[in-house]
């Protein structure tokens, strides 16, 4: 707990730097902001959330039960606020799990589904219906809207996940020599016209990076989850394929979540 406060304080120190190097925003970026504001109302993610809620309450799997008794860390059946407090350590699985990992765990252990089948195609392709995992995750995060992020760092495995996540964040590799920090380590940077949140060194940026995922991506016409976000970052980093629910995915989500502690969840959001 002490550690965790320390990190918030450290992150807060960077606020001054953020103000000093104000975003380089010309008229083009102002117009992009206007474009985004025009899209804010009527987020198609609502359609996916509605389907997720339906799936949540439907009896499915070999055991023919719903997910309503799944334990996301706040007790069996408590979904409200759970996403904002994950990843966290689960004794029954003896590992740190992000929301999507725990969702799959419940589909397998509670509903009796086959893990390989459930995780085979986690992300919908172009022109395909959103997957059940995407819909359920959308509903899950909607149930944390407005709730402050509080990703725990009390268990040693939670802290190890953060530290490994931080290591992965700075690891340059591949033919382009990119790391996460190449794009997300300096305040006020843009790729093309897209603002790049400085995830490690700027508290408002770090907050936004965690609290606005999952999001409906208009460029893909689909809701995308945090697991997808990381997978697609690594694809563009020219790394190999980040495995769904892999240790590094959970480690990085822990790193992102802890850096955003205290900020209010605002997802599913809508993005380019």
């Amino acid at each position, binding site marked *: 707990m002490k550690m965790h406060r320390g990190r918030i304080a450290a992150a807060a120190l960077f606020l001054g730097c953020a103000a000093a190097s104000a975003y380089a925003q010309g008229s083009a970026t102002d117009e992009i902001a206007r474009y985004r504001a025009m899209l804010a*109302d*009527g987020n*198609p993610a*609502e*359609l996916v959330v*509605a*389907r997720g809620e339906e799936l949540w309450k439907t009896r499915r799997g070999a055991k023919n039960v719903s997910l309503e008794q799944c334990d996301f860390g706040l007790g069996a059946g408590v979904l409200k606020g759970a996403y904002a407090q994950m990843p966290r350590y689960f004794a029954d699985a003896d590992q740190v799990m992000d929301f999507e990992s725990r969702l799959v765990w419940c589909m397998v252990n509670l509903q009796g589904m086959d893990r390989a089948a459930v995780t085979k195609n986690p992300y919908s392709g*172009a*022109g395909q219906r959103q997957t059940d995992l995407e819909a359920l995750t959308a509903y899950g995060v909607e149930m944390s809207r407005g709730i402050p992020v509080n990703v725990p760092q009390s268990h040693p495995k939670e802290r190890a996940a953060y530290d490994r996540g931080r290591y992965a964040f700075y690891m340059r590799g591949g033919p382009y020599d990119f790391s996460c920090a190449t794009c997300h380590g300096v305040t006020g940077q843009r790729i093309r016209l897209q603002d790049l949140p400085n995830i490690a060194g700027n508290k408002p940026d770090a907050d936004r990076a965690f609290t606005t995922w999952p999001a409906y991506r*208009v460029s893909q*016409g689909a809701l995308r989850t945090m697991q997808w976000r990381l997978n697609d970052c690594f694809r563009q980093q020219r790394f190999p394929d980040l495995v769904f629910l892999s240790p590094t995915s959970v480690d990085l989500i822990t790193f992102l979540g802890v850096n955003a502690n205290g900020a209010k969840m605002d997802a599913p959001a809508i993005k380019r």
Partner: protein
Amino acid sequence: MPDPMRIRATEQPDGVDVRVLMSHEMETGQRRDSAGAIVPAWFIQTVVVSYAGKPVLNAEWGPAVAKNPYLQFKFKGGKKGEKISITWVDNRGETRTDEATIG
């Protein structure tokens, strides 16, 4: 069976504000799949919104309406607690009708 629409209809001083999201691919007929084959056009062609048995909006769309279409408009004379109904029909003849209560 297509997914349900999300409809918000709210009474305001100058009329009933209607906002609708529809779940639809809106394929243009220009996109190629990973095998290089053209994905056939598939899009909503007609939307009808009605209140008290009368149309309050009609729409005809082509494939250039964005995926998961959004529509917002206002009509006069609607009362809180009453229902509006919305139907869409696509070029495959698939259709969906949903109702919402004016709030």
